[in-house]
């Protein structure tokens, strides 16, 4: 039996989060949201700045505790089952630096061991090859560009073949060609290993290309949860970007906003 798979009854749903609520001093950052992700599914978590995306991700990862609601990953409920749940989750973010004073290989080895990965060298090589950066294995973390750091962060997050991969703005600092490499690598990973993906991004085109379903947040609430095209239809827009601009309150109507941009252009 493969290790660190989900419990049999929870095979289809790798993530079940219900009624998540988080209050900061004077703000309700997240207001009773539900997020479910099935095995192998690619889900985008979208919303304007301050919508509650990162707080939601941090709660799902056990780094922030919710004031209300429940989180279950592969049948392991947080916070009690945090360690078991995190065995099945990988996380990377575009804004996260690599640990200083470590070579890429050492960084990956450290995290591989924290996840209990065996045959670690093989996994490191395979991960670096998947994202086409095997030449970086012996580079110091401080020598990498921000794009390279992001790629190494994603390799770190996938070393232990997680059931759920959580990525927070992974392509925020990447050139289009590197971003494409990331999308291709992620799609290949999800398809070949059945890994579910939960990703945030401000790049709507990327989300449309990568994700099968989108959860749209605004002011801490889920306001849409469907395929990208269905959400665009729901908001009478052509695409997610128009929906995003509409929800962010830029322009009164999506089409009007677009025509203003065209006029300026």
């Amino acid at each position, binding site marked *: 039996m493969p290790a660190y798979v989900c419990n049999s009854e929870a095979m289809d749903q790798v993530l079940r989060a219900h009624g998540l609520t988080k209050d900061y001093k004077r703000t309700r950052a997240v207001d009773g949201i539900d997020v479910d992700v099935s095995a192998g599914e690619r889900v985008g978590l979208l919303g304007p700045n301050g919508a509650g995306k990162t707080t939601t991700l941090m709660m799902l990862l056990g780094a922030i505790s919710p004031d209300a609601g429940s989180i279950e990953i592969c049948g392991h409920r947080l916070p009690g089952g945090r360690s078991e749940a*995190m065995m099945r989750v990988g996380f990377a973010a575009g804004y996260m630096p690599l640990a200083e004073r470590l070579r890429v290989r050492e960084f990956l080895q450290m995290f591989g061991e924290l996840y209990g990965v065996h045959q670690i060298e093989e996994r490191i090589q395979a991960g670096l090859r998947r994202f086409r950066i095997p030449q970086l294995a012996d580079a110091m973390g401080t020598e990498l560009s921000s794009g390279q750091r992001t790629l190494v962060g994603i390799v770190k997050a996938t070393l232990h073949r997680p059931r759920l991969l959580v990525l927070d703005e992974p392509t925020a600092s990447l050139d289009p060609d590197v971003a494409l490499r990331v999308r291709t690598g992620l799609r290949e990973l999800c398809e070949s290993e059945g890994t579910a993906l939960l990703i945030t991004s401000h790049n709507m085109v990327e989300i449309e290309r990568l994700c099968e379903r989108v959860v749209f947040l605004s002011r801490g609430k889920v306001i849409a949860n469907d395929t990208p095209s269905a959400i665009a239809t729901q908001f009478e827009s052509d695409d997610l970007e128009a929906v995003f601009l509409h929800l962010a309150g830029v322009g009164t109507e999506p089409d009007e906003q677009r025509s203003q941009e065209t006029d300026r252009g």
Partner: protein
Amino acid sequence: MNTAPVQESNSRKLSWMRIRSVARRHYYVMLRSPHRLFDVTIWPLVDVVLFGSIGAFVAGSNSGGATAFGYLLGGIVLWHIVYQAQIAVSTGFLEETWSRNLLNIMVTPVKEWEYVAGVALFGLVKLVAGTGLVAVAAIAMFSFDITELGLGLIPIAFVLLAVGWLIALFVIGFVLRYGSGAEALAWGILFVIMPLSGVFYPVESLPGAIRPVALVLPSTYAFDAMRTLLDGDGIDWATIGVAAGSTAVLTLFALAFVTKMLRLFRARGFITRYS
């Protein structure tokens, strides 16, 4: 499908793998930041020169000087057990905040105790290096050999090691709660504990008003037992027993404190300070 390269091996094996991994990470950090060696090289030597010279001066000045000489040098050698143990664990944790690696660590399966154990394990290496250097320097410069005190040193050293780790847990708790502003405690707190513990003198020498504070510190009894050994009166098991008992109580307090601070850290979303 997902055939993960990890195995559901017994959790003890997995814990050991994680502890070793954290320890190795901190070894790399020290290896590549020579300035971090200051704590285990220069500072111990400065301490021996300073307190050894004071001791040598006092020893030549009056009849009780020889006793003071032993108290000063014995005190500084054993104080370095507290110092090195505390600094290694505190700065190990602080390293994760400085390099913004805390979130990376917090979202892995590593358990809190495994992380602290990993940092403490590497800290033992620094402790042996730092305290060893102090002990050797004391022999070389002042012909003072701490090992002549015999086996009685072992329980004293264990108490002081535990005290160092426990102080580090308090420091970590304060940093979790108050952020980087509390980092100064990693070094500053030792300047409070040192005089209160009567490292170089019996606590009766302290002003009466602060003596009760000294009496709740396990390190006070450990240094008291050291002086008994230095006076040639053998192992004072009663005092060592009090030291061990108060260490156990302090352990409960430290664990309760750091657990509460970690809960608060998660509840208030303080991780965003480091991401």
